[in-house]
């Protein structure tokens, strides 16, 4: 793993010298030689390389772990010449770093890496600057440039040029400095790294008690009769300049004044009710500033959203006017290449990621309908023109890269990405938390590619559209354990210095820390033997499954004594059900002879609310669910008896809404349909069959993965048997949906639970220090921003049909009283 220091120095020097001519003159080559600190690297990055998910990665062969190597390494090599300034190539050659062709792409990856770090170093506070600077992990070829560049001080111009040479045919642009979180909240996840952290500290545990509503805005987007029982807006606005930018449940784009809540403009893309897949949700929007446009040109900065009816829409942030240069009159049709338009089958609910000028989006393919379902293809579009840059169709990566041939579609039924991806402007990667194949609970007829990529985090190089590495959290997923959380990018505080890393939470509750460049886990990945009891396809199942040895939010397997109820009788009924079901612990496979218990259920662990990370304190805040599902595969005959039909055989808008996801999904084309009792409620009373807490929130030491505190999230006030609110003010820990924001003031703000309370928690102790009763369910991620020196905390309580909280159209900002 260690690199020879002298050699490394030599290589970096050589690289720089060679690079110099190709680069602007002011790139002082001497700087490189003054770069004594560089060759320190002992590559801490992959100290403990995961047992099975990745091969015992010798640092030399760095890049993609074996699982993805074949295809990505091969496909990437061609990019090298593009990117490579001659220097790069030379460096790689001379670099002794022998090994595989995989090196080449790696080399250019870090050349890119260097770019932003140098740039951000200029203007960005330590936080970001340090991120890329340190010599990173397991890199061989990489390190020389990686180290050399930052020391070269002058890099910005230099790298700018070299990067420009980078991609003659790629639509991707140069790495650009990213807007910062603080006064603004420019990304769905706060900053570009999706930390859900605000450096604002005006509101503290000492004064939070005085917090009051600064304004309440209502979007006016409430369900029509047809959409009743299908709303779950889940919206988090952006704050840019003086305005908050958001989308409503049905994708109406809205700008309001961030201090007063007065509406600036709105643009309604006219999404029809029948486009609602499972829920009408729009978690957020993204912005992009065209580096080539004059600041006052129309759409110089644009809001881009992806809609339920699968369009990308771009409007001017200042005026709400459609960006005529984007796609066709401001729109790109994502149905293109997907196949027959069945409203609600293919919908986008997450904000797109924008990396190096490429808008990356997947889509929610409504679960459980049919084998022959819309593709899970993930596509990149030019953020200015809306032109397709690439398509990553995991079933036909090369053939469909520029879209499928006329009359054909992207590979049908493949795993999709419905949640928010995270862009890595420095590396030019986008990290895709992939879901499972369209038929979640049966796998025997999946393709090898589906098996390879489902429920994995996949890094795609946006300059090429090719996968770089993949990290799978469930092998052969037959549990709907989609990766639902947006990953966060951090500098992991390793013993030998910070390592650019990714925090990846999963629905099983495992939290992984991965090297950003290689996808290797920084901590050991354990392996557990998976049960096969009752399985309808034991030969398909994976005999072992990965678990994180860094941290897991998952509680111990259920036992009979975990059964609950309000009286001994419903408790006894649940015990009987428990004993009757197939259950052999975590990863008990689907069965049809009798029901099986899935714990944790598909709501997590961690779902789309993701985790928040305080980089200063080094603390991860994770809220989680702790609820099982009680499921059963239905034979085709049983499914027919129940009249289960896929969405394309129903009338528009017929499906979706009140039912739990999977409560009777046909899985047409597979031998079995699926019936899910989400949250496993007792028949009759509706009381959960397992004991509380059903959800909690936890603080985790980022460096060690140790729990700092852990407490149930949510009171019992709105829960009770037969759906009757108990008004009990006791903490019980309810199911929750939505995440938190952490502020430098030492507070965690979160609603998420089903008690409709918005609360501030002391990050040091886990104690709730303030709360406010919301007019609707708080199933949305809150955010923080500042206007004229006043800090605001904002949440958009919109409720959630499945969480059974009141639906609303509110946007509520809180602040301390003025004077």
């Amino acid at each position, binding site marked *: 793993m260690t690199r020879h220091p002298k050699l490394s120095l030599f290589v970096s020097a050589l690289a720089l010298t060679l690079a110099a001519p190709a680069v602007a003159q002011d790139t002082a080559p001497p700087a490189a030689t003054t770069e004594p600190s560089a060759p320190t690297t002992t590559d801490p990055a992959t100290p403990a390389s995961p047992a099975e998910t990745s091969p015992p990665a010798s640092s030399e062969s760095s890049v993609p772990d074996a699982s993805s190597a074949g295809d990505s390494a091969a496909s990437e090599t061609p990019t090298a010449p593009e990117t490579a300034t001659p220097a790069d190539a030379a460096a790689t050659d001379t670099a002794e770093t022998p090994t595989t062709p995989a090196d080449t792409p790696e080399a250019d990856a870090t050349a890119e890496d260097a770019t932003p770090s140098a740039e951000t170093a200029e203007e960005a506070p330590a936080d970001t600057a340090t991120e890329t600077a340190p010599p990173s992990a397991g890199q061989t070829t990489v390190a020389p440039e990686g180290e050399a560049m930052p020391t070269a001080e002058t890099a910005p111009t230099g790298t700018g040029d070299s990067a420009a040479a980078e991609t003659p045919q790629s639509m991707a642009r140069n790495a650009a400095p990213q807007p910062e979180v603080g006064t603004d909240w420019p990304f769905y996840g706060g900053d570009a790294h999706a930390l859900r952290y605000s450096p604002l500290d005006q509101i503290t545990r000492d004064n939070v008690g005085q917090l009051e509503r600064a304004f309440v805005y209502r979007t006016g987007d409430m369900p029509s009769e047809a959409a009743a029982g299908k709303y779950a807006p889940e919206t988090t606005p952006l704050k840019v300049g003086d305005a908050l930018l958001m989308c409503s449940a049905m994708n109406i784009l809205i700008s309001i004044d961030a201090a007063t809540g007065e509406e600036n403009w709105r643009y309604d893309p006219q999404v029809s009710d029948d486009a609602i897949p499972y829920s009408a949700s729009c978690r957020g929007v993204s912005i992009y500033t065209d580096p080539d446009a004059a600041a006052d040109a129309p759409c110089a900065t644009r809001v881009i959203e992806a809609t339920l009816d699968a369009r990308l829409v771009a409007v001017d942030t200042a005026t709400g006017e459609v960006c005529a240069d984007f796609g066709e009159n401001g729109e790109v049709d994502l149905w293109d290449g997907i196949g027959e338009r069945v409203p609600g089958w293919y919908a986008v609910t997450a904000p797109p990621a924008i990396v190096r000028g490429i808008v990356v989006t997947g889509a929610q393919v409504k679960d459980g309908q049919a084998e022959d379902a819309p593709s899970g293809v993930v596509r990149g579009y030019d953020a200015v023109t809306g032109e397709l840059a690439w398509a990553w169709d995991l079933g036909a990566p090369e053939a469909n890269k520029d879209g499928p041939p006329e009359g054909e579609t992207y590979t049908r039924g493949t795993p999709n990405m419905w949640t928010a991806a995270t862009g890595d402007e420095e590396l030019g990667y986008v990290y895709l938390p992939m879901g499972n194949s369209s038929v979640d609970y049966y796998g025997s007829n999946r393709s090898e590619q589906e098996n390879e990529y489902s429920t994995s985090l996949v890094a795609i190089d946006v300059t090429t559209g090719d996968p770089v590495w993949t990290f799978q959290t469930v092998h052969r997923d037959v549990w709907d354990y989609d990766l639902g959380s947006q990953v966060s990018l951090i500098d992991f505080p390793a013993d030998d210095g910070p390592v650019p890393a990714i925090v990846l939470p999963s629905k099983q509750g495992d939290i992984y820390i991965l090297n950003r460049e290689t996808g290797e886990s920084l901590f050991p990945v354990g392996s557990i033997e998976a049960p096969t009891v009752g399985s309808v396809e034991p030969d398909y199942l994976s005999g072992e499954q990965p678990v994180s040895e860094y941290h897991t939010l998952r509680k111990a397997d259920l036992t009979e*004594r975990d059964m*609950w109820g309000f*009286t*001994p009788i419903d408790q*006894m009924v649940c*015990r*009987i059900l428990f*004993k009757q079901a197939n259950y052999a612990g975590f990863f008990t496979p689907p069965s049809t002879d009798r029901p099986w218990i899935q714990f944790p259920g598909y709501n997590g662990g961690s779902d789309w609310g993701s985790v928040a990370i305080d980089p200063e304190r080094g603390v991860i805040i994770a809220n989680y669910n702790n609820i099982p599902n009680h499921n059963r595969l239905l034979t085709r005959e049983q499914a027919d008896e129940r009249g289960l039909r896929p969405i394309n055989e129903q009338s528009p808008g017929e499906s979706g809404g009140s039912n739990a996801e999977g409560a009777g999904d046909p899985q047409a084309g597979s031998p079995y349909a699926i019936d899910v009792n989400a949250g496993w409620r007792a028949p009759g009373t509706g009381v959960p069959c397992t*004991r509380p807490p059903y959800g909690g929130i936890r603080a985790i030491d980022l460096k060690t993965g140790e729990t700092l505190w852990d407490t149930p999230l949510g009171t019992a006030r709105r829960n009770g048997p037969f759906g009757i609110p108990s008004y009990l003010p006791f903490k019980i820990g309810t199911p929750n949906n939505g995440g938190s924001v952490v502020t430098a003031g030492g507070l965690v703000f979160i609603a998420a639970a089903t008690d409709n309370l918005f609360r501030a928690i002391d990050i040091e102790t886990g104690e709730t220090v303030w709360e406010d009763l919301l007019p609707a369910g708080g199933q949305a991620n809150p955010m923080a921003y500042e206007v004229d020196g006043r800090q605001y905390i904002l949440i958009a309580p919109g409720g959630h049909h499945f969480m059974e909280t009141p639906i609303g159209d509110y946007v509520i900002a809180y602040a301390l009283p003025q004077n």
Partner: protein
Amino acid sequence: MSNIRVAQRSHGVGHWAVMLLALVIGALGVVLIGGGVWLITLEGSWYYAIAGAGLLITAILLARRQMAALYVYLLVWIGTLGWAYWEVGFDWWAQVPRVVAPTVLLIFVLLATPALGNRYRATVHEVPA
């Protein structure tokens, strides 16, 4: 005549309340025995069948208005507390289904005690008559 008076007294509100309580407790007992035996056949907990039997005995004794109903029920209740602690310790939410309903029943049984033993006395009176 005295025995008639006793009979009248015993068919007042108190009598019907105790009978209703006996009926409720008896019904719960039967359900718990049924489910509890089923659970035992599934290799589950024996508590429910045993507690159900205790409730059924309590119900019969209540119907016969014997003070022993209270003692049997106290035994069930104390046994329940011990079992509940053994299963889940001081996890208060987990205690809810185990302890709340049995304790509510205990309150009703205690309320019924003034009406218990009447029949016994009535019998005593009857003998000399």
